[in-house]
Structures are given as C-alpha cells and as structure tokens.
C-alpha cells in the first residue's frame, strides 16, 4: 500500500481537461512554494495521460497518482 502523501494545497478540478486543466494548475502551482504539494482531483478521461506528460515538461513532480480516486499529488518544482 502506498504511504499517504502530505499536501499543502488541494484543488477539485472536476471534469476540466486539456488546456483548461493545465493552465489553471499552472497558476495554482506558481502561487505555491517550491517543494510544496498540491492534491488535484481530476476526472477528465485525458488526465491520466496528460498530467504525467505535463509534469515532465514543467519540471514539477507527479509524486503519486491514485487512479481509482482520480487524485494526483504534484510537487512544485524549483523554478
């Protein structure tokens, strides 16, 4: 069983997807401190493919993805 991930912010993105999801996530992460974690609930069908790809490009880190709960734990990068 995966250990719980501590997080400082959370956001229910609902069914937002594609560019709408990641631009809002971009704004929220930029408002956080490097190293902080946001827990995102995202139900869009494309999110499981998109958010890992997006994190690879932005240098944020997808710490954990709970596929059943549609929860993503993302650590803000040092930028």
């Amino acid at each position, binding site marked *: 069983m995966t250990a719980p991930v501590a997080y400082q912010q959370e956001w229910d993105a609902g069914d937002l*997807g594609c560019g709408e999801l990641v631009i809002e996530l971009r704004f929220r992460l930029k408002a956080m401190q490097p190293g902080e974690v946001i827990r995102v609930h995202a139900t*869009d069908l494309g999110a499981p493919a998109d958010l890992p790809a997006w994190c690879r490009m932005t240098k944020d880190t997808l710490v954990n993805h709970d596929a059943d709960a549609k929860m993503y734990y993302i650590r803000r990068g040092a930028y």
Partner: protein
Amino acid sequence: MAGTGKFCVSLTCAKDNTDKATVAFVVANAAAASNQQTLVFLSIEGVRLSQKGFADGIHEEGFAALKDLMDNFVKAGGTIWVCSPCFKKRKLDENNLVGGASIVGGAKLVEFLSDGTPCISY
C-alpha cells in the same frame, strides 16, 4: 539532418471530409512503414473515427478503405490519440475505442512535438 524518429499526423475530419480522413491515414501509414514512431492525433470531428464501426463504409476512390488503412496503421505499431474535450463534447463512448486509440489532452501532444517532431495536419 537527423530527425527525431517520430512523426505526427493531425486529423480534424471524419465523415465531413472523407478525402482528408483517408489521405491522413495513408500518410500515417507511410510514416509508420518508414520506421517512424507515428502518432495520429484525432481532434474536432476526427474524434468520431475513434469509435469502432464509424469508419466502416468510408472508401474513397483510388484508395484503400479507411478501416483497412486504420487497421494497418495500428498493426504497424502506430498510435492514435483522441482529443479529450472534443471526445467529451460529442458524447462518444470511451468503452468503444478502436484498437491503438487512447484519450489524451493537449499536454501529451505538446510533449510529443516539443522536441521538434514534425506534424502534418489534415
């Protein structure tokens, strides 16, 4: 000049322009047959081709049937990505996807292209 070894075909049409839909997969097959890691990105009306049976009966004169072109593309190792918001807007069935297809958002496409991979659009 060395390329990325990848190739993208962006397709926005289905039955609204069967000529474009067909030629897109002809070109995608050429890329896949040329040892390129080939992606067909379906968006706008093109997402309808992600549904099993939708391409049946589309057969442009002078070309193979679209279903055969799509089947051969996947058989050759090609990948089909389906635009998530376009799919959702049209209320299509995620449990009725053709082989090789998966639903993605824009970030996946951006990552695929961000190393300079070429993309041709229909």
